[in-house]
């Protein structure tokens, strides 16, 4: 089986979800190639040469200095044909989830988004992904010869294995047209110094129990101690205490961190849906009947305002700073 993994980069660095997709590819088993599509590819090729893959396939064009999803889709489809790829894996990032369906259409391939696990049944790949924001999970098989999957971040270890032999590097010519560049990313504006809830390994979220935005320093301090991102319940976002970008739940972000700490969040169905796949869940809430406790691994029934300061200090100590 030939597996092609798309390497997404940001500021010249290959992103972690792409390295995780390489691990997922090795777990599926087969020959793994990677695709690089950019204006300036030399630094990316150097990085790719240290990856545990057999070949690096490159498409380059000066117009790609500004990312375009249509142009990238055309190039990735061309690379997939060149590599005779049976399976194409793309990290399910904001960019990846826009790119994967395009590649699927171009290759007349079936596509399963945000895969959390792969299994094999009679030689066929069964891909499972959460639906209804995690209230259920759906297992599917792709019925076309070529199959496209996006892999949810944080679930596979980023591949750090060195290659057995240095991968070959091959260039592919793509017949881009100007129409492919009718949409171009002009700028990436990063929120300074904040970890995004969607890709965080640890998340500390606050809800209505925090009583107001002025009390979020407690959430931020605990998050700081953990090295975590801050999240919020829909109630806290709807009240205008926190931005939409922090909302965890069915109409916010669906997250799968290693540790999720819910503070003053009762646990409405739509919130639980967004975070119940976290590896470890901690709940702190005054109400011992709060639904959040039913899915928590650890928790404290009590006043968050009294618990958070000593907890923050203790976490700092344990993490050695």
């Amino acid at each position: 089986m030939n597996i092609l993994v798309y390497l997404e980069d940001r500021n010249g660095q290959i992103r972690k979800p792409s390295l995780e997709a390489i691990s997922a590819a090795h777990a599926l088993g087969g020959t793994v190639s990677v695709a690089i599509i950019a204006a300036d590819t030399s630094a990316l090729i150097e990085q790719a040469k240290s990856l545990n893959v057999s070949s690096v396939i490159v498409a380059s064009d000066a117009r790609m200095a500004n990312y375009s999803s249509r142009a990238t889709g055309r190039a990735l489809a061309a690379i997939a044909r060149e590599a005779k790829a049976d399976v194409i894996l793309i990290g399910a990032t904001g960019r990846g989830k826009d790119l994967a369906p395009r590649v699927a259409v171009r290759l007349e391939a079936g596509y399963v988004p945000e895969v959390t696990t792969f299994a094999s049944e009679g030689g066929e790949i069964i891909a499972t992904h959460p639906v209804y924001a995690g209230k259920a999970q759906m297992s599917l098989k792709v019925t076309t010869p070529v199959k496209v999957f996006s892999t949810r971040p944080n679930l596979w270890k980023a591949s750090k294995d060195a290659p057995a032999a240095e991968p070959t590097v091959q260039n592919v010519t793509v017949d881009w047209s100007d129409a492919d560049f009718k949409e171009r990313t002009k700028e990436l504006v990063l929120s300074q110094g904040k970890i995004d809830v969607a890709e965080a390994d640890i998340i500390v979220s606050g809800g209505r129990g925090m009583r107001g935005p002025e009390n979020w320093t407690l959430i931020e301090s605990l998050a700081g101690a953990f090295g975590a991102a801050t999240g919020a319940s829909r109630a806290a976002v709807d009240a205008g205490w926190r931005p939409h970008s922090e909302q965890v739940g069915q109409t916010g972000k669906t997250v799968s961190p290693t540790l999720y700490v819910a503070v003053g969040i009762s646990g409405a169905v739509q919130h639980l849906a967004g975070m119940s796949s976290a590896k470890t869940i901690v709940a702190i809430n005054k109400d011992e009947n709060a639904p959040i406790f039913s899915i928590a691994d650890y928790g404290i029934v009590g006043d968050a305002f009294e618990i958070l300061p000593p907890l923050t200090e203790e976490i700092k100590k344990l993490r050695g700073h």
Partner: protein
Amino acid sequence: MNIIVCVSHVPDTTTRINVAGDAKSIDPAGVKFILNPYDELAVEEALRLRDKMKGEVTVITVGADNAKEAIRQALAMGADKGILVKGEKKDSWQVAEMLAQAIKPLNADLILLGKQSIDFDGMEIAPMLSELLDLPAATVVVGLTIDGNKATAEKEVEGGREVIEIELPCIIAAQKGLNDPRYPSLPNIMKAKQKPVQEIQGAPSAARTEVVQLTKPEKKRANKILKTDGNPTHAAHELARMLHEEAKVI
């Protein structure tokens, strides 16, 4: 401006999901269906643009007769007319294909839709329509300004925002934060019943994926819940110890 809004009819966020007897789909009993919340943002944006630039807003969905309720809700918000594409949809590919068939003859200037439907959460339709209709698209959009045949869209990405320049006609997939959708007023709900909804038959090619099974996630949780018993500091220290020694997450 000729604006098309694609909508879907999905289970309400407060709904508990139960698996049907076939183990492949949800049990619709007791499930309340609503207009997909992200599509409300798309409808709202369409209405604001129409009111500013003149034109018409057509709402379109794929599904069975009951999906018309989603169209009616969008009409009650203020959209002008609706199209129900009738057809069985086995996967997102078929939905995108049937939408593309219906949209192609309409000469749209702008196609709006929610960034995802809150049922299958795939975020597939906008990029698929982009390829099928040969139009550029921007997804997960939290800000949109249109100037002649050019638009600037702000896309929410991990850790920040991308600023995307895009040429019209184009496809925009809305994310929360783009606007605050209006609630339909009672007179508008009444008026919506008189607005035209055309029905056409979809003709998709074969599905490209097949559901093997639908299950509810089951995860065993340690469920060690402490009480403060008048000493919150002690409970906090005990929690930290468990996270360090048992869960080994710190």
